[in-house]
């Protein structure tokens, strides 16, 4: 255990800090060790500074990760240990002379002391969510920020105010906030706090802008060239490349299935009524034929439900993950940049004339950045993998469930028809 003075966590029910390894202990730093001796850094002692000059938000307990990973603040937790609950619901349409838009109610329940009140209820529109995400990306560049549903929709193709579209969007926004709320670092972000609590976000946005004036928003890429991505991160990059490809394929397959099912549905809608018109000129066969017609109609409705569900619940989640992966690849690139900067600066210094003068603090800070970034990213990666596993387990079992329900509805319809079809026969048998 190195000497650090981490602060205890504000919430109850979690492991006391002393029982946990310091996040930036020796093992973590081994990865990008430079030849020269540098002290193992500790979160509490140094000011971590972003390449753009702003101090990293360290008011949260350890901006890195493994600490919190071991605390397991993810969905496996029972409700007791979670102390922040967020939901998005109640979409409403607002019409003004300038524009028409939808707002959603964002409800928060929390015991965290970072919040003034235990409960909040505010209304937010998509713009606000977008603002939040941008702010999170800026202020927490070493972390994986969950994705938002797509911003732009083709005006002619999709009805932005249809129930289905709004509901799909609401679910995605809800997922977004929940993912942020469950993140051990992001959930303590001040912009997130403002988003959840501020009555008038616009004012807050303006205020935030004022105080951060002078800071450049974009990451300075600096044009440093990374020689080689470390194995670990290269593996992440490769995984993301293949995974995104497979997701694309699955999306295409799902769409194709929906299309084929829709066309099948169209035929069924023509098929059923033919039995009905046949029954109109039959006597004995009237009831059986009507029965078949009704059955086909029931199956058609069940199929329509299945297709709609898949469109609304399945496809959006796939697309969300594709967006997630895109932003993750960008974070990997940023990490490469940070490492490249450090290595370049280090090289310049290694070959310095005077070996006696200490390594410039500038380089040391770079090393810190690299190590923190790596640690954050690794921790986020693990948590992302875990969440991904759960999300896809849920998504695919959901798909299986929907199909099972469809077949069960059809089965019930056809089974109830059998006695009707056999009915007259038994009656006839008796009279004969």
């Amino acid at each position, binding site marked *: 255990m190195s000497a650090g003075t981490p602060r205890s966590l504000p919430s109850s029910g979690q492991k006391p800090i002393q029982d946990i390894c310091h996040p930036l202990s020796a093992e973590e730093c081994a990865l990008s060790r430079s030849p020269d001796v540098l002290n193992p850094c500790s979160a509490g002692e140094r000011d971590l500074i972003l390449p753009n000059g702003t101090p990293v938000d360290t008011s949260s307990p350890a901006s890195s990760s493994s600490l919190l990973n071991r605390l397991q603040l993810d969905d496996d937790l029972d409700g007791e240990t979670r102390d922040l609950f967020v939901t998005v619901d109640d979409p409403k349409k607002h019409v003004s002379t300038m524009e028409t838009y939808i707002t959603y109610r964002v409800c928060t329940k929390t015991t965290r002391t970072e919040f003034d009140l235990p409960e909040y209820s505010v209304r937010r529109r998509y713009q606000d969510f977008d603002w939040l995400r941008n702010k999170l990306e800026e202020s927490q560049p070493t972390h994986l920020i969950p994705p938002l549903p797509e911003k732009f929709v083709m005006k002619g193709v999709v009805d932005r105010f249809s129930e289905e579209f709004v509901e799909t969007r609401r679910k995605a926004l809800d997922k977004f906030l929940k993912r942020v709320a469950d993140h051990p670092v992001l959930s303590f972000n001040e912009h997130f706090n403002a988003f959840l609590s501020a009555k008038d976000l616009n004012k807050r946005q303006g205020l935030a802008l004022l105080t951060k004036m002078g800071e450049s928003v974009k990451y300075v890429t600096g044009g440093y060239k990374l020689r080689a991505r470390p194995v670990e991160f290269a593996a992440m990059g490769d995984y993301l490349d293949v995974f995104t490809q497979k997701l694309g394929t699955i999306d295409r397959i799902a769409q194709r299935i929906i299309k084929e099912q829709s066309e099948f549905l169209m035929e069924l809608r023509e098929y059923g009524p033919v039995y009905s018109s*046949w029954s109109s000129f039959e006597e004995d066969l009237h009831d*059986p034929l009507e029965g*078949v017609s009704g059955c086909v109609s029931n199956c058609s409705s069940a199929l329509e439900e299945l297709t709609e569900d898949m469109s609304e619940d399945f496809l959006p989640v796939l697309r969300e993950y594709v967006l997630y992966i895109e932003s993750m690849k960008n974070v990997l690139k940023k990490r490469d940049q940070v490492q490249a900067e450090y290595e370049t600066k280090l090289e310049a210094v290694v070959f310095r004339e005077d070996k006696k003068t200490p390594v410039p603090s500038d380089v040391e800070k770079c090393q810190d950045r690299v190590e923190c970034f790596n640690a954050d990213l690794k921790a986020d990666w693990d948590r992302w993998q875990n969440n991904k596993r759960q999300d896809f387990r849920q998504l695919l079992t959901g798909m299986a469930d929907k199909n099972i329900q469809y077949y069960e509805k059809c089965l019930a319809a056809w089974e109830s028809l*059998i006695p009707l079809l*056999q009915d007259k026969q038994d009656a006839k048998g008796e009279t004969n």
Partner: protein
Amino acid sequence: VERTSLLKMMEISVAEAEKRTGKNAVNMQETYTVYLIETRPVDAASEGTNPVPDSLWRRYSEFELLRNYLLVTYPFSVVPPLPEKRAEFVWHKLSADNMDPDFVERRRVGLENFLLRVASHPDLSSDKIFYSFLTEENGWKETVFETGFQAKADSRLKALNATFRVKNPDKRFAEMKHYGDELQSVISQLLRVRARAADRLYGVYKVHGNYGRVFSEWSAIEKEMGDGLQSAGHHMDAYAASVDDILEEEEHYADQLKEYLFYADALRAVCRKHELTQYELEMAAQDLTSKKQQREELATGTIRTFSLKGMTSKLFGQETPEQREAKVKMLETQIEEGEELVKERNTECEEFVKSAWVDIERFKEQKDHDLREALISYAIMQISMCKKGIQVWNNAKECFSKM
């Protein structure tokens, strides 16, 4: 299936199909299919000895000849139809090729069905030509032609194809004909839409097979999720493969509908033949009436009907009493003959109506029974398909939950 005296005697089946090549009428090489008709005495089967059945080969054109013979010889019967000559109402996977083994197999079943239908018909089953069709391989064709049915067939065909109008149509037959029209129309529509739906269903199932491949590829980059994904993929493959059997079974239902599509035609043929009989009766009666009127005119000297002869004789002088006498005598003979003809035709008509109506009632009952059975087996097919679907998706769900 009615236990006619024929069926009490023998078992009939169309056991096999084979390809043959030979020279046709214009001396060109052709390939055709022959079907093996097997007959076995009923007693032998029940005794358990199982002797070799009698058998002979026939081709489709011979079946057609038999049916045409029956149509002409039993015009009041709703003659069972043959399976379709060419594949119709096909969905894309199904071959429209007459030589395709699946088509041949389905035709074999259809031909067997035809023979059993004829064999269970109260009138048709006792026909000698039918019996020799089943039992005499050589010379059967000649025997059929010797009956002279061809000549009758030709004249009937001519008459049927001509347009004629019946003055007092029999309401029942008119209704039956109308029913036949509607049945034919609705079954055609049903078969068409069903074929399109089958195409779509095929597509839905087969695309799921793609999940199998992509899950397999995806599982390669996963650790804990890998196994679940891989096995789920196998279930998706099984799901995709299951549609072939499902649609093959449905084809059987389509064949049952087709039989009644063609039966509708047979029913309409009976109604049409009745119309012809009625028309011929009306023509004879009309002819008789006009002849009687002519006689009356000649007798009384009054012209009620216009005739050119009458006019010319008025204009150019009367005919001699001898001439008149001859005319009257001729008319008397014609009237006598005419009355005989009307009597004949009347009896014919009455008998036709009686026999036809008996067979139509029999047909109605058979149709109601068969179609009800067909609907039941269709429902059972659908139930089986749903159960299979539930099972596959439950299997997949289990795999997913283990991801």
